């Protein structure tokens, strides 16, 4: 299906991105578990490849006795392969645990760095279990450094599997350098077998070939890993840029839409003025008291519509109103909504506030509608209380719905954010209205327990009221 509407397709894309990002954030526990699994596996791998290592030693011995360069090269290739098999679960496990823990704790970079300290401990454990020297060689030092750099570069990339692929590709590349005789004097190759291969290469005159092969293959793999890293980072940067552009687009459309509505509302003024004038003329012309009463009702309604229009056109214009006027307006409008019987309104104060009645009511309706969407149709309940708290008038909308997760709570105010059922404009609009009223808004939610939205607005004291009326 091709979506022709750019707003709708943009919103869908935005929702998909938000879901992907949210999904990754939720997975930290799973990451830690997988990390522990890989660490566990790394303790078993040396046992599993013991036979292959023995055969590799035999290849090296034979290459010494026969002077066979090909056999030594084969042994070197096998060693690199087995080294990567032994190193990969340790590196993967430490990375997963690091990523998992860093999403839980506050100082994520420091926590990630600390998590990598698991690696030397695992190496020590393997050495102790198998009574071998499982050394922290050059390839591990370089790979750990690359992991740290990648962690900083790819913080926003949610796909851990891609990052793991890149890291292990680097590891494989760096493991190839362990068989390069030229690097041995710098202490890069620490393992006994790697040292043996390098030693034998000198003995049978194969050091040139080993240098060439080791460097070439390593370089090819590392270049590939670098290109892949660049492509992935660019891809995600582009995705984030698209997301940002979509947001701006939505904001622009939103603003344009309201401008159109304002023009439309403004145009209503002319026929209203005509109705008002002609209604006055009719009232003067007729003697029938019943008709005069009707004239008064019409005049009153025109007055109401006129004041509503004025509030829409001048959204920053606040008047002193009784909070009861807001709740009455809400009751009238909610009576038209589906599930309105689920909404209970409790007025616990009679205070006055500076408000744009129409916009504030629309904001509250928005919140109530969100709550109605979140509750269970059978047992769900939405309660609006208007009360006083800390010298402010408090509008609190509470529901016993499905709630919002901690990760999504941080995003709900973003323009375009949506749980999937609405346009994603609602709460952003609510926040703007509350800000225009010099108020505060806060939201508390627990998944499967419900959500409470609190709007604090300054109440009108007596002096303000006098100034307003004066």
């Amino acid at each position, binding site marked *: 299906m091709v979506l022709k509407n750019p707003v709708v397709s943009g919103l869908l894309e935005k929702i998909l991105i938000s879901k992907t990002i949210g999904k990754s954030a939720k997975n930290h526990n799973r990451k830690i578990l997988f990390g522990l699994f890989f660490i566990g596996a790394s303790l078993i791998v040396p046992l599993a490849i*013991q036979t292959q*290592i*023995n055969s590799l*030693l*035999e290849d*090296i*011995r034979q290459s*010494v*006795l026969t*002077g066979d360069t090909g056999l030594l090269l084969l042994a070197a290739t096998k060693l690199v392969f087995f080294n990567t098999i032994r190193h990969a679960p340790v590196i993967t496990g430490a990375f997963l645990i690091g990523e998992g823990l860093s999403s839980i704790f506050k100082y994520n970079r420091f926590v990630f760095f600390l998590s990598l300290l698991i690696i030397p401990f695992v190496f020590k454990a393997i050495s102790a279990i198998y*009574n*071998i*020297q499982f050394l922290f060689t050059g390839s591990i030092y370089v790979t750990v450094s690359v992991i740290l750099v990648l962690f900083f570069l790819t913080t926003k990339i949610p796909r851990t599997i891609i990052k793991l692929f890149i890291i292990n590709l680097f590891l494989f590349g760096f493991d190839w350098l362990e068989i390069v005789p030229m690097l041995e004097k710098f202490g890069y190759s620490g393992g*006994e*077998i790697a*040292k*043996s291969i390098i*030693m*034998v290469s*000198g*003995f*049978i005159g194969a050091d040139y070939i080993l240098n060439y092969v080791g460097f070439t293959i390593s370089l090819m793999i590392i270049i590939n890993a670098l290109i892949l890293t660049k492509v992935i980072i660019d891809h995600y940067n582009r995705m984030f840029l698209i997301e940002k552009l979509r947001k701006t687009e939505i904001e622009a459309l939103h603003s344009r839409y309201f401008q159109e509505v304002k023009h439309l509302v403004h145009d209503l003024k002319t026929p209203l003025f005509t109705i008002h004038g002609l209604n006055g003329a009719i009232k003067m012309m007729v003697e029938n008291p019943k008709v005069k009463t009707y004239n008064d009702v019409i005049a009153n309604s025109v007055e109401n519509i006129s004041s509503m229009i004025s509030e829409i056109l001048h959204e920053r214009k606040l008047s002193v109103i009784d909070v009861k006027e807001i709740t009455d307006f809400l009751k009238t409008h909610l009576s038209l909504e589906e599930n309105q019987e689920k909404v209970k309104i409790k007025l616990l104060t009679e205070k006055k506030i500076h408000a744009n009645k129409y916009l504030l009511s629309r904001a509250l309706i928005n919140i109530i509608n969100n709550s109605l969407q979140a509750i269970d149709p059978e047992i769900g309940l939405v309660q609006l209380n208007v009360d006083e708290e800390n010298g402010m008038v408090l509008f609190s909308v509470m529901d016993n719905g499905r709630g919002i997760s901690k990760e999504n709570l941080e995003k709900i105010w973003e323009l375009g954010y949506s749980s999937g059922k609405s346009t994603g404009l609602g709460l952003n609009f609510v926040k703007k209205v509350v800000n225009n009223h010099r108020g505060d808004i806060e939201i508390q939610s627990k998944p499967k327990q419900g959500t409470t939205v609190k709007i604090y607005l300054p109440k009108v004291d007596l002096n303000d009221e006098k100034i307003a009326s004066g």
Partner: protein
Amino acid sequence: MVTKIFLVVAIILFVPLMSISAEEPENEILLHEPFLVTSAGQSLDAYLVKAAFDKLGVKSDLETIAYADDLEGFNQIIIVGGFSHKGIASAGLSFLDEIERVSQILEKAEEISMPIIFIYLGTFFLGDSREVNLIEVITPLASQIIVYVECSGPLSYIYEVAEKNDIPVSHINDVNDLSEEFSRIFLF
């Protein structure tokens, strides 16, 4: 007169320099074929030694896990020291097995007055105390010692024991050209 003084000064200056730069004469070791090459510690060094002899066309028998009884029929034994975790493990031995085996060979060789040539290349020495243990067992009983001068192993200990027991020590300068070095050290 001036010429004489000049000559005296020259002699005074050059004689010590000449003694410094002159290489110590190598001990030449006479090889009596057939001889057995075995490993103490199962490192790859024993294979390097065998390959060097092969290159020189000298027939040697390599038995990395030789036992005391295997000495029969040989005139000499060359023990190549060097501990390898991987080598010991792949041979299915423990370190205690290995040290026991080496001790028995040394004991038997002494018993039958067979010359023991101890070669220590130390190419894979990673500071493991087990390699030092092996060296401590072999060195005092060796008839001849050959060491690689640039190895990272405990050479000072070897020199000390050799001096104490009056054991001649020969040197290998280039482990990559072992056959050339052997042709200098051994008399075939």
